[in-house]
């Protein structure tokens, strides 16, 4: 099977943005399109998940509030989200006295690594629930196989098998570029 094509989100956002400007409830469609990219942009640039969640929330809430004033020029909606994120990260850095400014300045939106990770996370949402839970326990909560087995009430062998299947599916669907 051919690897999934790159999605066309960039081409389509104007329609969605205008629809959301007319009816803010349609912001939900922009959220579904861009959550992963904004999240990755943020988590790559802050020290911990809690801060990443606070900032990602702030970005989308600010974007929803600021939507009536958004005008699509130079870079479009995603670039605007990144700009809000960049400012929020800088503010958080100042508040928490953490030196993030330099990283923030280097931020290059929409690089290949971000796009690949965003696609990966969208694919993960389509895996069977149990496989998603195992990935979250192992890679996000950083639990051992034994701890994951305990949390889900499964054997260690079952956890290994679920993780193996999940990763095999993801690697197939992402294509094997080397």
């Amino acid at each position, binding site marked *: 099977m051919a690897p999934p094509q790159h999605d066309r989100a960039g081409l389509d956002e104007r329609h969605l943005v205008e629809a959301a400007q007319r009816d803010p409830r349609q912001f939900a469609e922009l959220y579904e399109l861009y959550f992963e990219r904004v999240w990755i942009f943020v988590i790559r640039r802050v020290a911990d998940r809690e801060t990443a969640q606070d900032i990602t929330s702030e970005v989308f*809430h600010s974007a929803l509030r600021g939507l009536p004033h958004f005008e699509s020029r130079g870079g479009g909606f995603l670039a605007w989200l990144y700009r809000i994120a960049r400012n929020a990260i800088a503010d958080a850095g100042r508040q928490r006295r953490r030196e993030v400014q330099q990283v923030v300045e280097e931020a290059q939106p929409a690089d290949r690594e971000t796009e690949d990770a965003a696609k990966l996370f969208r694919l993960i949402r389509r895996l069977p629930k149990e496989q998603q839970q195992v990935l979250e326990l192992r890679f996000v909560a950083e639990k051992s196989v034994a701890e994951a087995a305990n949390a889900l009430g499964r054997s260690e062998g079952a956890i290994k098998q679920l993780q193996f299947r999940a990763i095999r599916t993801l690697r197939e669907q992402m294509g094997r570029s080397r």
Partner: protein
Amino acid sequence: MTRQSFLRAMQWMPERSFRNRLRKELEMSAHEMVKSPAPAGFTAVTAYPVLPRGTAEAFLTFVEQAFGAENTMRVPRPDGSLMHAEIRMSGCVLECGESNEQFAPAPVCLHYYVPDVDAAYQAALKAGAESLYEPTSRPYGDREAGVRDVAGNSWFLATHQGEHYIMEPLRSLTPYIMANGAARLIEFLKEGLGAEAIYVGSSPEGRIPHAKIRIGDTVLEFSDASPQWPATPVGLHYYVEDADAACERAVAAGGELISPPRDQPYGERSGTVKDPSGNSWYIAQLLQPR
């Protein structure tokens, strides 16, 4: 993707619970910005397929695995079957329940715009759907494929070939109603539900091959039934400011009152009216915001 880049990316994996929580917060905020009789996240009209008993689990798994949908609410009946579920997909809402003595199975047709119809079609087949037709480029500018899911619902998957993948004025997910007597139905919707016809096509034989009708803030699609696409009366959840007045108006326009409005235990006042083509409209008013 190399093993190294995979492992690196996995360090950034977002928690599903966070993604869902933030979606909910944004729905609530957006809801406060508009005046709508519908609950947060909803528009006026939502398709409500009644799934054949015993297929709900497979259906919910199908929409998650094929389309990345999220099951955001689930209410079982005492016997364990599914009374009610809500699904979020691409910023839109779909509801469903399982059939029982009171509700016969009533599958729906859904027109679903996706960025890449070929990929969505493959994902749907992989998740257990049956192919109705392969991705095909249509003269009206959509590339389209058809599948039938495990509960008998038909999905018209589409990518608009213009600048945007969604053809205006539709959203990602639109109920598509095949009706006997579409012309009469559209008149009823205008008179009885205050609908506005955006587009009504006509064929030389006098059929309506396609129509787009706005009801409240929601656009629905209709066509006359055909041998290939027989009439499939569906359930539609329709939120209004005043359920009693709306039911009365629908009945005056020729709708059949199936159950008069009454306060329901789930915080709605609602009644059911059947339109001339046999579709059931669950006309509802929120008793408290949600």
